[in-house]
Each structure stands twice: as structure tokens, then as C-alpha cells.
């Protein structure tokens, strides 16, 4: 087993283990902090896959933005003296059956399919330059649409939470 495989298995264990904590933890705060480790594990897997720009984006957007927003959501929807922040679980048995069935099906598909892999042997190169050129060239239209979508979504979110004075 070479170093690459050791790092891969460590990152995979970190990602999947902390994702299990996210789903199974009794406390919302534990879930949120386990989510931090899941995001970091996924960022590490991106690095192993040679996607340096995406790994950085993952850390910036998910850890710096989305996780903080989720923590705000946890804090703002509970009273401050409500210290344990419980989150109950319902319908656990059918949910577990469905999730286990999905995992079995997806794993079987991943293992049984003859994937047409070609690029696995090439050495990882910096990707930021290529991504920037594609965004400004072939993918300019989706890029602009995504920026407008972000603007509209953030303005809409501000509109939704605004307290109405009249009406």
C-alpha cells in the first residue's frame, strides 16, 4: 500500500465517519461541527483528484460560508437557555432501509460497470488557469446566469426574512 492509498483511505474514513456523525448525532451543534470535518475531508479528496481550485473553493464557500450560515440557523431558531439543542429522529427504520438500499445499489453499479477511464495516468497540473479561461469563454453564459441567480437568491432571502411593518 503506497502513501497515496494511505492518504485516500484516511480522507475517506474522515469524510464518511463525520458524515455519519452529522446524521446520527443527538445534538445539532455536534452535527454542525461534524459537518466541518466532512467538508474538509471532501476538500482533501478534491486535492487527491488534482482539483486544487475546487478544493480551495470548497473550503472558502462551504466551511467559510455555508457552515457559518447553518450555525446561524441553529442559533437563531433556539432559545439561548435551551442548551441541549436536541434534534429528534423519526421514521428511523424505513429511512435506514432506504439509505442502505441506495448505498448497495450505487456501490454495485460503481463496481460492476466498465468505466471508460482514460485520464487517470496524467500528472496533476494547476487547474485555475484552465477554469478561468473556460468560464470566460465556452461557459460565459452559464457563468453570468449563475451570478444573476446568486444575486436574486440573496435578495430574495433578505426579502423573506424582513419584518413587515404594515400588511
Amino acid at each position: 500500500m503506497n502513501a497515496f492509498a494511505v492518504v485516500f483511505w484516511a480522507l475517506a474514513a474522515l469524510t464518511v465517519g463525520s458524515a455519519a456523525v452529522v446524521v446520527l448525532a443527538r445534538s445539532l451543534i455536534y452535527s454542525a461541527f461534524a459537518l466541518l470535518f466532512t467538508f474538509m475531508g471532501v476538500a482533501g479528496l478534491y486535492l487527491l483528484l488534482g482539483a486544487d481550485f475546487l478544493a480551495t473553493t470548497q473550503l472558502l464557500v462551504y466551511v467559510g460560508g455555508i457552515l457559518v450560515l447553518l450555525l446561524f440557523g441553529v442559533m437563531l431558531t433556539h432559545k439561548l437557555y435551551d442548551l441541549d439543542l436536541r434534534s429528534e429522529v423519526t421514521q428511523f427504520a424505513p429511512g435506514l432501509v432506504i439509505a442502505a438500499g441506495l448505498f448497495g445499489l450505487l456501490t454495485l453499479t460503481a463496481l460492476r460497470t466498465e468505466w471508460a477511464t482514460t485520464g487517470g495516468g496524467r500528472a496533476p497540473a494547476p487547474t485555475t488557469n484552465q477554469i478561468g479561461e473556460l468560464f470566460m469563454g465556452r461557459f460565459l453564459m452559464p457563468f453570468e446566469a449563475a451570478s444573476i441567480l446568486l444575486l436574486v437568491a440573496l435578495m430574495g432571502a433578505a426579502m423573506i426574512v424582513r419584518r413587515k411593518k404594515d400588511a
Partner: protein
Amino acid sequence: MIGLPHYLIVSAALFSLGTLGVLTRRNSVNVLMGLELILNSANLNLVAFSRYGSGGMTGQLFAVFVIVIAAAEVAVALAIVLTLYRLKRTSNLDEADILRG
């Protein structure tokens, strides 16, 4: 030798755990965390195929768009959760049944 199926299986595990979270949690913020797990698993698949497949950088670009959508989604969803909390003093999804006739 670590190959494409390894990443796909990690991603399948993330996806199933996210589905479990969405299906079994009562708290809406916790359901959102499950959704983030699902989006991350999709991204992992895209990047893995971008590395091992013949599509080049396209998979990574798709992953960037998924991250953008996830950011927009979580902002709007938290706005809805906060409004629901202000209205009903709860963040449990099964108590949000005002629209039921």
C-alpha cells in the same frame, strides 16, 4: 491502486448518509445538513469523472456551479426556516403544516 470506483463508493456512502439525514431528521436545519451531504457527494462524483474520464475540465466546472447553487439554496432555505420559526416558534418540519387543508 486507487481508481475511479473507490471515489464513487465514498460518494455513494455520502449520498446514502445524506438521504438518511433528510428522511429521518425532524429539525429543518438538520435536514439542510443532509442536503449539503448529498450535494457534496454529487460534486465528488463530478470531480472524479473529470479526473478519470475523458471530459477534461468540464466536470470541475459543473462542480463549481453546484457549489454556487448550494450557496443560493442554503441562503433561501435559512430565510424560510427563520420565517417559520418566527411564525410558529418551531423549526421542526412536521409541525409546519399550516398549508394543510
